């Protein structure tokens, strides 16, 4: 019942083991595609087709020997890399060069992924304790608005971040009260919180800032420039000038992992989420733990929103988060409710968004279709195509204390 993923072990028995062949197939397929992209930009279809074919073969071999999941992934990847490789060799080098600027893509990916990371880790705290948190979107949005409101009125980005966090905590308290104390349906309440955040932020935004919108010079969360590495080949453009919040998100990842899996607090949270009755018997206060977890999730999601408004863009507009909270939730599920898994998923979605911005080079009108890419990926992820995720056992069920 306790977290199975933590105790999964790998067995590497032989080199010819189906699992290693499947993994080799994946690597070979990816390599085949990579060869035709900048900076190598090989102009022959030999590489993607040959290597992709090898990848497919390896995948089929692995599937027939029992390694289903990785094998099918290898097959899929091999076919994809063959197709995409042929497409890539057919498009001009100029196009490729402008689309696949790896460093800019990676920098863009990090910028997209950061709000998702914050919200996903927040969601992890809430859901690990057994409370479904659909309201990440609303908490993020309110964090974004109140952060910029406070930063502008009080002329300080630190106060802005604090105000945003407070707003997220406030909404989370409402969510927690209705879900934990009154034991209402957690999904309905979460949706209500989302609507509430949308309406409240929109109303206050128009009331305070009216027609002109937020003014131009609002104190922003500073970027961290590292002049030493700014000129390095690839790392420079990616890591040389990143916002403080992005660096903090890395710290958050490590801290949240340690807290959740290496401290008594984390153990308490997880036990409340897996088997609340047992935890209660041992003396852990289920209600208090859940309240704390939900409030934490509110604060973290709001921080993600604050990054968006006073970290990246420097302004606010209605419904600024545009569904990011839900993508964060999907990232969490995709990452099996673990911080690094969720981060990897957030990076994947960030990468697809970054790519979607650049693909319009190829076709003006189909460009709009590419914008749907992150959502399609999320759909595939949640559909469990990549593998079924096991949630905390007691999630979604209100607890009645005896």
């Amino acid at each position: 019942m306790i977290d199975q993923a933590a105790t999964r072990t790998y067995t590497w028995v032989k080199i010819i083991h189906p699992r290693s062949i499947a993994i080799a197939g994946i690597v070979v397929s990816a390599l085949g595609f990579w060869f035709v992209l900048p900076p190598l930009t090989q102009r022959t279809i030999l590489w993607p087709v040959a290597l992709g074919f090898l990848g497919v073969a390896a995948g089929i071999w692995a599937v027939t020997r029992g390694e289903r999941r990785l094998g099918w992934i290898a097959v899929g990847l091999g076919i994809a890399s063959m197709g995409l490789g042929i497409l890539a060799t057919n498009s001009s080098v100029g196009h490729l060069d402008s689309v696949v600027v790896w460093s800019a893509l990676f920098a863009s990916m990090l910028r997209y992924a950061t709000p998702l990371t914050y919200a996903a880790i927040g969601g992890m705290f809430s859901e690990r304790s057994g409370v479904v948190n659909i309201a990440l979107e609303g908490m993020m949005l309110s964090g974004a608005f109140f952060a910029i409101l406070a930063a502008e009125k009080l002329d300080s980005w630190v106060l802005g971040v604090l105000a945003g966090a407070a707003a997220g905590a406030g909404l989370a308290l409402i969510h927690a009260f209705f879900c934990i104390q009154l034991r209402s349906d957690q999904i309905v309440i979460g949706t209500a919180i989302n609507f509430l955040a949308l309406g409240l932020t929109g109303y206050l935004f128009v009331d305070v800032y009216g027609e002109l919108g937020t003014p131009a010079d609002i104190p922003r969360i500073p970027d961290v420039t590292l002049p030493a590495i700014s000129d390095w080949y690839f790392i420079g453009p990616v890591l040389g000038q990143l916002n403080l919040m992005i660096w903090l998100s890395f710290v958050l990842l490590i801290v949240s992992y340690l807290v959740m899996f290496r401290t008594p607090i984390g153990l308490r949270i997880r036990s409340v989420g897996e088997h609340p009755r047992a935890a209660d018997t041992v003396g852990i206060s289920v209600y208090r733990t859940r309240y704390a977890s939900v409030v934490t999730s509110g604060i973290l999601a709001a921080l993600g929103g604050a990054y968006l408004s006073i970290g990246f863009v420097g302004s606010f507009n209605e419904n600024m988060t545009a569904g990011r909270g839900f993508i964060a939730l999907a990232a969490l599920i995709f990452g099996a409710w673990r911080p690094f898994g969720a981060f990897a998923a957030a990076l994947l979605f960030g990468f697809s968004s970054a790519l979607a911005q650049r693909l319009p080079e190829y076709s003006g009108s189909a460009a709009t279709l590419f914008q749907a890419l992150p959502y399609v990926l999320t759909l595939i992820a949640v559909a469990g195509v990549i593998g079924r995720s096991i949630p905390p056992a007691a999630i979604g069920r209100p607890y009645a204390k005896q």
Partner: protein
Amino acid sequence: MSDKGADVRRIHWIAALLACGLLAIGLACGGGDDEGSAGGETTTEATTGSGEGVQVGLVSDVGRFNDRSFNQSALEGLQRAEDELGITGRPVESRQTSDYVPNLSSLAREGFDLTIAVGFLLAEATNTAATRFKDSNFAIIDYSVKAPPFKTNPNVQGLTFATNENSYMIGCLAGLMAERQGGRQVISAVGGIKLPTVDIFIAGYRAGAKQCNPQIRTLIGYSQDFVAQDKCKEIALNQIAQGSQVIFQVAGGCGLGALDAAKERNKWGIGVDRDQSNLGPHILTSAVKRVDQSVFLTAEAVVNGEFKGGTDAVFDLENEGVAVGKISDQVPQEFIDRMNEVKDQLISGELTAPATL
């Protein structure tokens, strides 16, 4: 359970009746000073009052009036007409597509002398209203009455803008600045949704840059959004990563994000629709579209009885319907002279700026 249920139901009914009662009392008492809900007009002091009694309505599209450029500029024109001409103005915001026809027709029904529809999205609705209310005057911004769905509507005037002309001038300036800077000869434009009113700016910009700097390459990106600033900022950052030195934003509120990216990375930005030089020293200039001027002039025409329905009024460089905003003082005088040369050539017809990509 049954006992409890009856209890609760009783509470419910009492509370509901009480609340209804309170509401009824409130509505009855509080609304005694009802001025006539749908006829409210903004009352403003008329300074010079040749237009007293003339009512001019302004109907926005779903972009509403706080889009920080287009619709807002029209609103400013209306306010100026109120102040200087003494007309009574009524701005009506549309929040959803089903508001277009009712908004236009309710103004016409109230006997407004002129109803101005802001934006091409209102073309169909304006045509419908104008056909039905043949005695009212209508005008539509950014749409030609010679284009479908308009057939022969003697009471509709189209207000179109030759924004390709001022963008041509600005493109020339951008090209010259890039040349002076050295490095990659790349400039770029960030558009909102790919619309004719957006592309007309970009087309002129690109051609003008080519005219003054033959090596120049113009990157174009669309955010598919006129509001969300993060999208335009990302596109601008991408373009800067590809070497762009001047970013022209043609995306309303969203475009402010693109200008923000230019500021962050020390590149030039160019504003649109209104003079956006107040955003900072990184603004090279702006492609100003005098929507406010068009509203004012049309209102003036109605006041003077000179309204010309059935035709288009074209606002271009010659009649200052489009202009170049405040130019940064970092620009050397010779560039400005070159730009003015181009301006003269455009007005005389020697050069033509393309209107489509």
